[in-house]
Structures are given as structure tokens and as C-alpha cells.
């Protein structure tokens, strides 16, 4: 993929005095939805601020679709950023807030008007457009920030904890919107603490801990790289006890448990490929009726627990 289609970090470090923000980050982020996951202080916001030029790297180089973040005149036409700061210029309505900053893009009055209205409609704030942002609820403020980030139709949308303060309905709508943007070929970078939602929206994840990138890529790929944790697989079949008995002969099987309605077998294996071969043999030998076979821990939550573990348990 050409550098003009990716967000690239090359050996990027950022220190706040002697405090580490992020250290030696090497990343290439392709289009689609990418989630930044990590405990508080892991460096998620620092990474986002670096790629939007709000912070400058102490070392290294960043390119957003080939543009340096130190070139705001070009970068800010490509990037929209919904920050976690819950503050707004005083005395502006939702509409005027969007309109005023769209004018900085050099658009005509008519275009600013049209885009402001369209963005507010997209986030469901059309009716509140002429109310002061200061009088908005937390959820509405979050939505108007989202509207501001996307109003100029950016190719890269960066969202820091975008689901905070949103009610379940608004969350579902926002997630659908992120997915839609990702499918349109945009870069959508999301940081979130809510792991099951990250799972739903992400094409790839970047796991951060204490300023370092712990893992990156599609979540299944990341899971398969975690060799020291046995893979958990859930098999639903008519005679799980038969399967369990055959499995215990194998060295790579760490654990097998029957649970649920008595038809589910949850097993842990150090060698998933050998297990799948064995399963084929058992099916042929004993006529086992298998309903489903699915990995049980290739989600963000499991990978997060394996790689970041207890330090992120508060998240």
C-alpha cells in the first residue's frame, strides 16, 4: 500500500519532560476502522494528538496519507478529530459552532451552511441546531463534536472515546456510522475503553501499554501471535464427553470442560492446527455430530487480558 494511503509512524517517541508518552512507535495504519486499546495512560491520546499535529514528536516521523502533521494547512483538510475535551467556544449554537470552523476551510457561506446542517442531521442534532452548545447534555455535546469532526468530509477521522456519554441508541447509531465510514475506505481511528464495542467496529486493533505498542493488526492475527496463551475453542456437538475423552490423550490439550446445556465443550489447546486435525479424525471414527466449532478467545477482550492483563483491569 502506498504511503499516500496509510498513516505511518516511524520510530516515533514523545516525552513530556521526563515522563514517557509513547516510545519507539512503528506503525502503518491502513484504511478501515482501527481501534486503539489500552489502559489509562497507555498513550492512546498522545498517539492521536501526534497524528493530528496537536503534539510534536520528540523523535521520529509521522505521515498521514503522505502529509506531515506539521503542515496543518494540508493535514486539516484530510483529518477530522473528535477530541475528549468537553469544552466549546462560548456563546455559539451547535449550528454556528460548525459553521464558524467550516469557514476556516475557506468554504463559501452556502457550502458552510449546507455542510453544517448535513453534519448535524447525521448525528441527530438538527432540532437542537439553534440551541447554545453550553445548554446541551453530555451526549449532545459528544455528538456535536462528532459532527464538527466530519463536517468537512475528511479522509481520516480520529475519534477519542467517541462513545462516552452516548445512550445505547446513539451508541448503536455511532457505531454504524463508524463502520460505514470504514467501508467507504476512510481511515477511522477510534480509542475506546469498551472492549466489546471495539470488537464490533474494528477491522484492526492497536494495543498500547505504558507508551509502547504491544500488538497491532487484525484481532485474529494478533491472537494467533500470542503463543504463550493456549487457544480456547468452543465445540458444540451431540457427545462432548466422547470428544473430551479422545482429547485428553493429546499433549497439546491443556484443559477441556463441558458446560452450558451439556452439548458445549470448551477446550484449551497449545496447538490449534493439531486439534482441528484430531477433530476431523474423531468425527470420522465415531460419527460425532458437530454443530459448530469456533474460537472462544480471539476477541479484543481476551487479547487485551493476555497482553496487558491485570494492569488494565480497571479499564
Amino acid at each position, binding site marked *: 500500500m502506498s504511503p499516500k494511503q496509510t498513516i505511518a509512524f516511524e520510530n516515533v517517541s514523545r516525552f513530556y519532560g521526563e515522563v514517557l508518552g509513547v516510545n519507539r512507535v512503528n506503525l502503518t495504519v491502513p484504511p478501515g476502522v482501527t481501534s486503539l486499546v489500552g489502559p489509562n495512560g497507555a498513550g492512546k491520546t498522545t498517539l492521536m494528538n501526534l497524528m*493530528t499535529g496537536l503534539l510534536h514528536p520528540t523523535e521520529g516521523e509521522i505521515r498521514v496519507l503522505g502529509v506531515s502533521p506539521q503542515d496543518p494547512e494540508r493535514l486539516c483538510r484530510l483529518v477530522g*478529530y473528535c477530541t475528549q*475535551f468537553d469544552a466549546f467556544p462560548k456563546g455559539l449554537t451547535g449550528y454556528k459552532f460548525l459553521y464558524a470552523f467550516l469557514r476556516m476551510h475557506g468554504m463559501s457561506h452556502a457550502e458552510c451552511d449546507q455542510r453544517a446542517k448535513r453534519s448535524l442531521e447525521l448525528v441527530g442534532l438538527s432540532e437542537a441546531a439553534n440551541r447554545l452548545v453550553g445548554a446541551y447534555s453530555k451526549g449532545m455535546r459528544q455528538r456535536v463534536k462528532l459532527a464538527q469532526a466530519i463536517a468537512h468530509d475528511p479522509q481520516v477521522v480520529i475519534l477519542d472515546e467517541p462513545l462516552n456519554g452516548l445512550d445505547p441508541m446513539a451508541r448503536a447509531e455511532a457505531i454504524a456510522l463508524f463502520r460505514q465510514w470504514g467501508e467507504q475506505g476512510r481511515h477511522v481511528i477510534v480509542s475506546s475503553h469498551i472492549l466489546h464495542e471495539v470488537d464490533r467496529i474494528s477491522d484492526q486493533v492497536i494495543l498500547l501499554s505504558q507508551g509502547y505498542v504491544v500488538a497491532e493488526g487484525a484481532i485474529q492475527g494478533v491472537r494467533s501471535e500470542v503463543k504463550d496463551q493456549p487457544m480456547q475453542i468452543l465445540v458444540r456437538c451431540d457427545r462432548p464427553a466422547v470428544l473430551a475423552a479422545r482429547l485428553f490423550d493429546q499433549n497439546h490439550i491443556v484443559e477441556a470442560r463441558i458446560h452450558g446445556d451439556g452439548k458445549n465443550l470448551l477446550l484449551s489447546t497449545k496447538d490449534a492446527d493439531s486439534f482441528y486435525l484430531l477433530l476431523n479424525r474423531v468425527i470420522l471414527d465415531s460419527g460425532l455430530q458437530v454443530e459448530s466449532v469456533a474460537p472462544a478467545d480471539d476477541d479484543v477482550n481476551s487479547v487485551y487480558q493476555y497482553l496487558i492483563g491485570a494492569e488494565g483491569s480497571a479499564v
Partner: protein
Amino acid sequence: MTHLWIRQIAGVLRLELKRTAFSKRGWWIYCLAAAPVIVALLHWLLQSNRHSARHSLGEDSVVFAGMFLVFFLRGSIFFGCMGIFTSLFRGEMLEKTLHYYFMTPLRRELLAAGKYLAGLTVALMLFLPSVAATFLLLGRHFGAAWTDYLVHGPGLGQLGSYLLVTALGCIGYGAVFLVCGLIYKNPMIPAAVVWVWEALNPFLPALLKKISVIFYLKSLCPVEVPAEPPFSLMVIETDPASAWVAIPGLLAVAALLLIYAGISARQAEISYGE
């Protein structure tokens, strides 16, 4: 490109005027601008009720010159500009709203220029009427003699000079405090240093006097204020700068400071201390 820049500066100006002008936080600046007008108004009312004035028109013009130098230049214009211009960037840092500007395709130099123009507009809107109203009210109790002084005498010329000095003061101090607000987390400390330096100006040697804003502003004032003892013993007399030096000099210093502000804005980061 120029068209885009004008549009962007106009956008910044509009937003900043909304934020800066008539904000509740600026109440003390409005008081600074209103106070001399109230004093002059009281002076007029009190003197109007007396049958004969205890002082001459000339004395009142010297009183205004002293008031202008001490109260306006070293007081309200200095502190007013400090309040207005330091908050242009620092205030937004405290309110956590500066990143909205930083996320637009706006040259940071233009942002600094737009903010400076907004601050200057507010400062001029406050202090030009304040100076004019104080000047016009202070001698008002002389009645026809005052009107004659204004129309046929040096009155209007003096008022024009005071307004010019006020505008130049706002331009000069505005640029100084814009830079302070951009590069210092607590701009009050450099502002205090500048204030002490400006206050010490009469006692400084000739060469050091010239490294200040007040020296050039004072040089442009139409009426000289004699120093009273014991200060007169400590004051070091220096020839005032000519208008041809003072006006372009002040504008050039302000321009240099603005260029520096633009460079600082380009290098600025968003760090709200979280």
C-alpha cells in the same frame, strides 16, 4: 490564496470578537476604561456648581497630560492590553478550546494575526472613547472658553495626539502581551517585569530608555508633564524621540513581535495540562 487568508482572518476575528468583547471575565478592563471618564464627569459636575474656577484651563490640560501618562499609559492601557492580549491564546488554553483552531487548515501565523486584530479592535473600542471622553469632559466646566480652546486653539490637535498615542500604545503593548500569552504559561510574571521596566523608564540612562514602549509614547504626547520633587532629582532627562522615529519605530517593533508570535504559534502544541 490571499482571498482564502482574508476569509480565514475574518473568521478568526468574528469568533474572537464574540469571545473577547463584552465577556464577563473582562469586567475589570471595562472598569479601567470607565474610571477616568467617571472622574472627569465628577470634575465637570463639581466645577460647574462653583461660581469661579480655582484653576486655569492650562492647568487642566497639564492635569490631563499627567492623568494620561500615569493613569492611561501606565495603568489602564497597559493592564487592559495585558488582560485582553494575554488571554487570546492563554485564555483558550485554560478554556480548552484552542484545539478547534488548530484542527482547521489555517496557517498558525494567520491565527496569531486574527487574534491580534480582534484584541486590538477591542482595546481601541475601549480606550479611544475613554481617552476622548475624559479629555472632553475635563475642561467642559470652562464652557465657551473650552469650546474655543478646542475649536480655535490647540485642543483638537492635542486630542488627536492623545488618541494616536492611545492607538500606538494598544498596538505596542498588544504585541508584547500577545507574545507573553503565547510563550509563557503564566504571562503575569513577564507582564510584571515589563511593567516594572516601563515604570523605571524616567530613571534609566538614555540608551536604556529607548528599549521601551513608554519612551516613544511619551515622546508623542503633546503636553509635557513636569516631574515633581523628589522624583525630579532622580529623573534623567533625555531628548524625546521625534514623531518620525517614534511612530514607525513602534510599528516596526510591533510587527517584529507579531512575526515572532506567528513563529511561536506554528511551534505551539496543545497541552491543557492533563
